[in-house]
């Protein structure tokens, strides 16, 4: 009899453990108004880049490959952080560079999903590369060139430099990792989901079960509406701002035309993780729809305000530098 009770307790114990271990059984908490709760501060900082580097040949990579890549990353950071010998003055005509590595926060590990490390955020095409239409890049090339070479007035510079939105596609959609400020805070209220993006303090406001705004309205970060499919928040974004066409950071360079349609899926798969999936349908800039996924992980770190406009001395310095060059 005692043995039978023990066995029953053991079975119950293992059932509980199994339910805890397998994330597909995870049932997210609900908000007070009944929606799955995605709220909290999350980060997508990662060494995994949007596109697969040439030295990887598959989406899933081994632990040995990850260790080697992390070692390379550390060596790169070490070299970046120690550009000069003691007492040495930087050489004239050298690389201007930026600042010590401590100011950056690019992540220290690769994306891991279903227990496997990932070589790219892109899951389709299977080669992990953007199916770019080179003709579109060629057409847009002159505008890109002007953005980084002209400085007659602030409006000629890039959106990131002007503190309009974060550089790259950190604010999304899709929301991609950059070198620092990779934090996102999700707040929900009845009918709305707000995602505060740390990079440039951009707020994405997603209207639930709503129609899109008229097509002539093209806000920063696009026009996003969402709905729930079971436990998954699905967000569809159209009418991207024309000036957000170029989204470039060290880790990704994408084009996003006004007509593009981006679909994102947010599924809470555990207490500390949201599975973030997306697909981009942009026939003008890409030969086919491309897809990606990554985890958003909870962090104890606070969100800090990134009040870019308040201290953007760099813009004045860039314009002053251009005037000084004109005098030469």
């Amino acid at each position, binding site marked *: 009899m005692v043995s039978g009770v023990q066995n029953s307790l053991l079975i119950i114990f293992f059932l509980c453990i199994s339910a805890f271990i397998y994330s597909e059984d995870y049932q997210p908490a609900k908000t007070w108004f009944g929606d799955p709760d995605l709220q909290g501060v999350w980060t997508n900082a990662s060494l995994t880049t949007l596109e697969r580097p040439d030295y990887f040949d598959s989406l899933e990579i081994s632990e040995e490959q990850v260790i080697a890549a992390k070692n390379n990353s550390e060596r790169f950071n070490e070299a970046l952080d120690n550009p000069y010998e003691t007492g040495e003055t930087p050489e004239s005509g050298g690389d201007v560079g930026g600042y010590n590595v401590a100011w950056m926060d690019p992540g220290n590990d690769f994306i891991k999903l279903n227990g496997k490390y990932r070589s790219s955020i892109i899951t389709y095409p299977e080669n992990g590369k953007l199916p770019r239409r080179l003709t579109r890049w060629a057409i847009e090339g002159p505008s890109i060139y002007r953005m980084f070479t002209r400085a007659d007035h602030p409006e000629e510079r890039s959106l990131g430099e002007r503190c309009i939105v974060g*550089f790259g596609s950190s604010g999304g959609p899709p929301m991609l990792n950059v070198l*620092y400020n990779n934090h996102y805070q999700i707040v929900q209220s009845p009918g709305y989901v707000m995602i505060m993006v740390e990079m440039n303090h951009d707020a994405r406001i997603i209207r639930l079960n709503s129609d899109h705004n008229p097509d002539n309205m093209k806000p920063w970060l696009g026009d996003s509406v969402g709905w729930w499919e079971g436990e998954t928040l699905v967000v569809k974004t159209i009418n991207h701002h024309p000036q957000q066409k170029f989204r470039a950071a060290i880790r990704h360079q994408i084009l996003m035309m006004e007509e593009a349609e981006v679909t994102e899926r947010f599924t809470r798969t555990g207490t500390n993780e949201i599975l973030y999936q997306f697909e981009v349908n942009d026939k003008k800039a890409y030969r086919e729809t491309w897809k990606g996924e990554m985890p958003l992980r909870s962090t104890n770190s606070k969100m800090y305000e*990134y009040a870019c406009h308040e201290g953007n001395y760099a813009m004045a310095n860039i314009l002053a530098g251009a005037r000084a060059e004109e005098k030469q």
Partner: protein
Amino acid sequence: MINLIYKISAIISFSILSLNISSHHAFTAEFDANAPINITGKVLKVEWINPHAWVHVEVEEKGKKTTWMVEGGTPNTLIRNGINKESIKPGTVIVVRGYQSKGKLCLPRCIANGRDVTFPDGRKVFMGSSGTGAPRDGADPRERR
């Protein structure tokens, strides 16, 4: 032939991007690669502002005092690394190596980037793991819990 032109143009676009997208803004647009600096001075104050913090340093050479503003990165990352306003006190002597801004009027202060900021003995002023805040999956023992 047209395809070739398209490809070349696209490659040039990529090259421009990769050269310029290293930060919130293009440092090459702000600083002069032909004006390297190597200065030692006392910290006057640190402006903990975004998008980039600025360290004000007073440099004395041959009896003449010059104030430099040295550009760093976002304070958000340093705060996560445990570095705050109390970490770098006025009067601390530091060595700054980098490049002066293209505009060299030095009015009211000279401007440079902090490509490398150290104490006189070579230790980094801004130390810290560059990975704080990254995804935590237990793989890295240095991760903060």
